[in-house]
């Protein structure tokens, strides 16, 4: 019996051959796909795909119309011209619009019902686009698509764009104040622009709020003409200033700034929502800070790998400049806390003090994971704050091998 040794091709040759074979196959597939007949559209399917012989050719001068400005609730229309420069009938079908505020219709020459139009060779027709200025104002751009049986242009998108102008607009649209101090006064501003034919008249301005209205004063002054440039097309503007006295209740703020205006002889009320929060003068911030549990969650830390993470104590209000943190007590003992010097943030209404938390390799093991079996650890800081001389930060951590 003879043993036949099969001579096997070198593995690298196999790989190269496979790559070449596969790559060529793939490229051939891609080329075939790319040069395949264009996607059949509804119009094409209905009219029969024309890739040989006489073919329709769609031409149009423009596909974008800038309507300038329209008022909120106002409307406009524009006609786009479509020509058939081919030698077969051009079948057009209404496609989708990007918004119900925009509709298309065929007008002009050609035959067909409302949803489609057939344009003979050498002929032309028009597509009429109508739109309504919806929304709160600002830049507006919407699209209407026409499907065709031109194999080179199976669809054409006509776009109309411009500016929708409201009667009034506020900047910001909502007055938001996050983290106000209960112990210090504060101020917020907003601008109210009107877009009437003539300058508007301010009748009244007030804050409507259930709980704290007596702690807030609202005033309004006309904006100088140069300030109107911030809102394109504004014919008048008012700067609103809200001054909050100290003593705001902790928790959520909610109200409405109502401004009564007379614009083009009509009286209207512009309502700007106000929302915010009032928090204590010392707050803890950091990636490991669990706001809901009001604790720092560090999980299980291996003392071999160690830990280096940062927290921040933020001080605001009347006593913020007196805050100087000093570590009074830390549980577990293996958790080290280093305090950075205080630094003002921005205008200095807030002071930031960094705390670096670390676990050195020789730290004793501990379990303070905030479970039923393991109570929370803590970082106790002396603060120097006149109302809160000591700050305790619960810590959920375990230090393992």
């Amino acid at each position, binding site marked *: *019996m*003879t*043993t*036949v*040794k*099969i001579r*096997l091709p070198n593995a690298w040759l*196999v*790989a190269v*051959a496979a*790559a070449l*074979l*596969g790559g*060529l*196959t*793939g*490229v051939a*597939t*891609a080329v075939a796909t790319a040069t395949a007949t264009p*996607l059949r559209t509804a119009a094409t399917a209905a009219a029969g795909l024309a890739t040989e012989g006489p073919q329709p050719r769609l031409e149009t001068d423009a596909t974008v119309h800038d309507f300038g400005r329209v008022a909120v609730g106002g409307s406009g229309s524009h006609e786009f011209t479509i020509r058939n420069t081919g030698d077969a009938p051009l079948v057009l079908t209404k496609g*989708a619009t*990007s*918004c*119900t*505020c925009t509709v298309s219709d065929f007008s002009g020459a050609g035959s067909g019902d409302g949803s489609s139009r057939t344009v003979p060779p050498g002929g032309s027709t028009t597509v009429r686009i109508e739109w309504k200025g919806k*929304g709160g104002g*600002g*830049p*507006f*751009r919407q699209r209407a*698509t026409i499907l065709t049986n031109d194999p080179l242009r199976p*669809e054409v*998108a006509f776009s109309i*764009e411009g500016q929708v102008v409201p009667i009034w607009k506020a*900047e*910001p649209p909502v*007055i*938001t*104040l*996050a*983290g106000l101090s209960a112990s210090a006064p504060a101020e917020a501003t*907003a601008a109210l622009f009107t877009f009437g034919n003539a300058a508007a008249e301010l009748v009244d301005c007030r804050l409507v709020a*259930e709980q704290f209205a007596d702690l807030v004063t609202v005033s309004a002054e006309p904006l100088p003409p140069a300030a109107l440039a911030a809102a394109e097309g504004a014919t008048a503007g008012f700067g609103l200033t809200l001054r909050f006295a100290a003593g705001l209740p902790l928790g959520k703020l909610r109200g409405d700034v109502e401004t009564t205006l007379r614009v083009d002889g009509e009286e209207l009320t512009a309502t700007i929502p106000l*929302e*915010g*929060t009032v928090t204590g003068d010392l*707050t803890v*911030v*950091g*990636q490991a*800070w669990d*706001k809901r549990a009001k604790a720092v969650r560090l999980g299980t830390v291996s003392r071999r790998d160690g830990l280096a993470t940062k927290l921040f104590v*933020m001080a*605001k209000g009347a006593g913020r400049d007196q805050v100087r943190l000093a570590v009074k007590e830390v549980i577990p003992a293996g958790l080290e806390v280093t305090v950075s010097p205080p630094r*003002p*943030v*921005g205008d200095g*209404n807030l002071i*930031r003090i*960094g705390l670096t938390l670390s676990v050195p390799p020789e730290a004793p093991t501990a379990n303070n994971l905030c479970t039923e079996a393991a109570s929370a650890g803590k970082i106790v800081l002396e603060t120097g704050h006149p109302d809160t001389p000591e700050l305790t930060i619960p810590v959920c951590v375990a230090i393992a091998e």
Partner: protein
Amino acid sequence: MHPAKTTHCPGLPRQPLAPRRVDAVAAGRLTMRLAALLVFTAISASAGSAATPDRGVGVSDEVVTEFQQRNGRLFENWGVPRAVLAITGELDGYIEPCGCTGKENQKGGLSRRQNFLDAMRTAGWPVVAVDLGSQVKRFGRQAEVKYQSIADGLRQMGYSGIGFGPADLRLPAEELVAAVASVGTEPTPFLSANVGLLGLDANITPRFRVVEIGGLRVGITAVLGDGKADGIRNDAIEIAPAESALAEVAGLLQQGNCDHQVLLSWATPEETRSLAAAYPQFDIVVTAGGADEPPAQLPELPSGGRLVELGHKGMYAVAVGFFPGSDQPIRSQRVPLDARWGEAREMIKLLASYQRQLESLGLEGLGLSAMRHPTGRRFAGSAACSDCHDYAYEVWEGSSHAYALTTLEEQDPRRDGDPECLSCHVVGWAPQRFEPFEGGFLSMAKTPHLAHNGCENCHGPAAAHAAVERGDVRATQAERDRLREELVLTLDTPEGKQRAVNNCLECHDLDNSPQFDFDEYWPSVDHSEDDEE
């Protein structure tokens, strides 16, 4: 054994053909190598064909064709780019599209966004994803939870650069830091040249980043425009003037030997153009403040760079492809995030987690407290109306308003714990403020009679009227007439009809019911009836 048949081949010496035994080991090796050849061929074929990303996983040809016809085809004549910059932004809180017209008719959402990014990666395109910012629009605990969820989603999708919009920066600093800061050794994708959470020197986020993708170096930075910074009142956030902050970062980026530089500018288009003119090194400049829909083509800046608008509500992404050495080295594609992209499992899980958090927090945990109804009245529930208004009640029962809450319960994940959905699907909430009125729906356990979108959402709270009509409360004829009159809506006068239409528009707004037309919709809920004694 019988000897094998002897054959004679011309030219070959005659010799008997002995039975042959093929070496088993060699045969095994041959089999393995042939199998490897087949697998390698298949892989090479896929790479060679490099399918254009045109759909999410599992989406049928019919759906793709339909949405190609509706919203256009994508990446025509692109080929395979050296790298792609996928740009998103202005999500405005629309973590997913929602509304009465059906999700398939709307665009946007993180789920489709993920599938869009994955489709490009699967097609072998090197992708770097960046986001302009403005993940949320509102303020309050729900916005905070949503921001964290969106930040987690963007990290999962592998974003390399994410800026901040004004609404993001109105959130409490502790929430922003928790969502944005680096996690362990993984750097944060958030960045800004001029916005510093807890101060510019706190270094919570970097000022810029350079990524290598497809052999190209792409520099990325972000700014918040001066015009937008003015409206932010948050002492924990330091915002430097945009141009001076950009001056420093631009210098550092120039040293980074970048092939392309991207500026994410949350500013008006005018201010963005001004920054782009001052720093022409940025060849891709993304701006806020455009129209609802981005333009089909990217306008060119005087510097030769491209200006990118993204539209609103995260309905679109813009892909910028880099083709160095070709006659069109930069190509762009506006990508509608429509139903052709399907849903991504990871984002569905993220949405489910978000909804569970809302449910777990409850209305109180979300900081929602009932506010006084403008009329001062309280709610009775639609069943109370049926005692006298049986025809109207019957019409209501047969309409989709009568199972509005059920539609939220039947969603996957369910939405009946989400105030932004509840506000239009129950009785007694302010639809546009997403908060309950006093006496409005709280839960199925506490207020089942206020489930679904009932009579009083249009006619006003009717508890006093119902009590008088039942005889529970004594009232004069004048008071009885007044309580009845307060609840009447009429379409007989222009003012009356406008009042009715305004009620509808509280929920059938452009966001949730873009197809709404009162005259078309009214017949399905028309419950006009003669006045009853």
